[in-house]
């Protein structure tokens, strides 16, 4: 999984780099159209187009029947029964293409989320870095018995406060602020173990990783923006509270994912005739 994520990360960084300086609505729209087309193609290739057309015809026929025999109650009930019987069949026919699309979509959305779901750190704007230690494991302590966890921040990124150790949450946190834009790498040390975490202060649409997660498969699937934390590390996860971002879709400020769904559906319906796909 980690290798796949690493490859996908590099691929998406490369593909999306031409859009980095543009408002996020531009790449989100472009991707939505491409994805709309891709979905149609997958649908066409993986579904039984003939059967879909047949079931749709039958459903339309029953709808027509209801209109035609609107004074014949038994006929209406029969036609309605037919519709209700065929809808599950219609849905089951689209299940196969949807199943084909599921995994690629999850991987795609997970990658895009970290390009368009968060804003970069504004210079001067404070942000919390929170590292959680694995439960159960013994705590790294110094000679005086205090928690031995340290953070070193590169030039340009200032540690304003912390570490603050909260035993109840097994969490150590710091408050940081970028002094100037840049892509930074923080280093956390717990005893002799160390771990890095990226921090991006930029107006551009670059990949930002709000969480570096552990090795659990689901976590890796959902948070692919950074390599998972090695299993030997005392850290469970490290969070950097990037503010969330919105895209501006003709004055409608919304989460990029909503814009993506709307735009890709619009694209798919607009292009299905041209591509000869039965939905």
């Amino acid at each position: 999984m980690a290798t796949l994520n690493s490859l996908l990360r590099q691929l998406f960084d490369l593909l999306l780099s031409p859009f980095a300086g543009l408002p996020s609505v531009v790449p989100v729209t472009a991707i939505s159209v491409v994805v709309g087309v891709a979905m149609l193609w997958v649908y066409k290739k993986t579904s039984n187009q003939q059967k879909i057309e047949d079931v749709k015809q039958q459903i339309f026929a029953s709808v027509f029947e209801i209109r035609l025999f609107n004074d014949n109650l038994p006929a209406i009930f029969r036609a309605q029964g037919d519709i209700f019987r065929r809808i599950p069949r219609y849905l089951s026919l689209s299940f196969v293409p949807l199943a084909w699309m599921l995994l690629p979509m999850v991987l795609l959305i997970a990658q895009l989320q970290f390009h368009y779901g968060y804003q970069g750190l504004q210079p001067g704007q404070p942000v919390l870095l929170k590292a959680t230690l694995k439960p159960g494991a013994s705590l790294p302590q110094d000679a005086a018995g205090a928690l031995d966890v340290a953070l070193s921040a590169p030039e340009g990124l200032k540690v304003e406060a912390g570490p603050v150790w909260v035993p109840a949450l097994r969490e150590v946190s710091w408050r940081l602020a970028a002094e100037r834009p840049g892509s930074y790498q923080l280093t956390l040390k717990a005893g002799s173990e160390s771990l890095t975490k990226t921090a991006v202060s930029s107006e551009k649409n670059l990949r930002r990783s709000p969480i570096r997660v552990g090795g659990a498969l689901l976590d890796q699937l959902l948070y692919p923006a950074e390599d998972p934390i090695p299993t030997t590390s005392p850290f469970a996860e490290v969070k950097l509270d990037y503010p969330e971002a919105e895209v501006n879709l003709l004055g409608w400020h919304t989460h990029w994912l909503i814009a993506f769904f709307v735009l890709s559906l619009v694209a798919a319906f607009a292009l299905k005739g041209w591509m000869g796909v039965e939905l």
Partner: protein
Amino acid sequence: MAGAPGKPRGRSRLALAAVLVAALAAALGCHGKKAQQPKVIVIGLDGLDFTLTGQLMAEGKLPNLSKIAQRGFFQALGTAVPPQSPVAWSNFITGMDAGGHGIYDFIHRDAKTMVPYLSTSRVDETTRFFRIGKYQFPLNGGKTRLLRQGTPFWEVLAQHGIDTAVVRMPANFPPSGKADKEISGMGTPDLLGTPGTFQFYTTELFKYYGKEITGGEVHEVVVENDQVQDKIYGPTNPYLAPIEGQKPERLAEPFTVYLDPHRDAVKLVLADQERLLEKGEWSDWLTIDFKLAPTQHLTGIARFYLKQVRPELELYVTPINLDPLAPAQPISHPEDFAAELAERTGRYYTKEMPEDTKALNAGIFTPEEFLHQAELATEPQIVQLQQMLDDYRQGLLFFYFGDTDQVAHMMWRAMDPAHPAYNAAQDGPFAEVIPKLYQKFDRVLGYVLEHAPPDALVLVMSDHGFAPFRRAVNLNSWLRDNGYLATLDPTRRATSGFFDNFNWAKTKAYALGLNGLYINLAGREKDGIVPASEREALMKELSAKLLALTDTKNGERAITKVYPREEVYQDRGHLEIGPDLVVGFARTWRTSNESALAGLAAEVFSDNTAAWSGDHCMDHETVPGVLFGTRKLARPAASLKDLAASILVELGVQEPFPPRAPSAP
């Protein structure tokens, strides 16, 4: 609005358009904006003292004010009777004295009920509700009304097509709605509806127990497992139907403080907001979102200050301010002007007089902490002035600062070794605080001079001066000791106020507010006993005795003037609201805290030992304000109440001000 900030390239076209619009408006006989307007910038510095300013100028410490004085003029500006900020600024705003605008004191009373209230605004009570289950939804009331009467001078300017921006004018809450842009200042409450209520969380039990703390609440908390869980309290929930015999429930928002077991730092969690605070650090503004009823929320903002972690946890929370980005009640006109001011500064204090004098008085802030907090409150205001100057093109810009008043109240003692509570070791280090504050605002004025258009008239004004407040006079105790005020239980010599222990059936006069003395008049006061025919004689008798009153400590006269309202006020219309007599204390004397709230003390005179050590609620002749201008005024102004008319003239409006009411004789 014509003449609004435009890019230099487009300005000539904008001006042309404005001329056309103005011509069209003139043709239609309505008031459009004038294309070419004179320019007047007025900077209000509350409480800037005439004597101290002159002295610091002579020492060369206020170069920018000296520059203005050389180019134009510098004079004393006569203040209001009595010289209290809401009265004084109302004099300026309306061109009338209290007889006309109806603001006589910080505190007024309703004679029919004998309930005191804050003088400048009132909330209409809700009398009708729609009830569902435990909730009640108000059907009427709840509206806040500005009680200042008269026409604000910017309304006349607006009628003549002059651009107007009025920032934090006191006694203008809710905003009048007559300026192009205005935001309210003094008189603006916090979310609790008070002048400001801080909340303080401490693990040190009993430290504040039994002490009367005003303007704040102390919550004792306990640390368990390196955690403190408590709540921030809001006002009572107006949507919860009252239950007979139970105290109305207050809104509360829980928060958790996690203490680092080894370091003096905490993590603060409030709803979905997380902050780290090291000892001595201030948080930014956090949103406090109270849930009132399904779909109904009440939102404010507050900052947290981690005063100390060990040995005792001490966490201060500012009064909950109305959020300038989404105020729970209108504080600006147009409504989004409050948010516009946040453009460069982010959120800021919206409540009146944000310097937390109460926390210093209660001993929760040290003087250093108070001064730091005052700076936090003032810095955004300075940036906002810069923003307003960048956007300024023409017409009127009024901008107010209250820091010069609030800090002077708290730090005056440091310049006054004769003060009864002066302690050289403690106060000595702060001796230069007020002069340095004057210098700071002199630098602000330097910025104004640099960035104002060269043909603009820049005026700098204050509403009153300052004096030491060494001795307090309890006028109610004096009335009692001289047989004018009777008590129900004579053994209870001291009361905390609100007419407690007053025997109205035998009381002829009472004091309320910082300078007011009222006759307990039959037919006017709820339990009045003095017939109208005896009122004047009684007022004369009281005046004569008060003028002879000497301080038991040094034998000096404590009162220099006593003004009957019918003589001292020229304007009419709202004379009946005011006190019958306005007491003008001699320099260094003031009404005691208890007397101001209609309370009694065992003795008439007492030392003022509070941190609040400078004041101005004395005889108005002893505490004049200042007026500076970068050029001489076409129509000179001797006192606050003349100044607006002079400003109108400078802005090309020749009409008499205050405007005469059409029905007036």
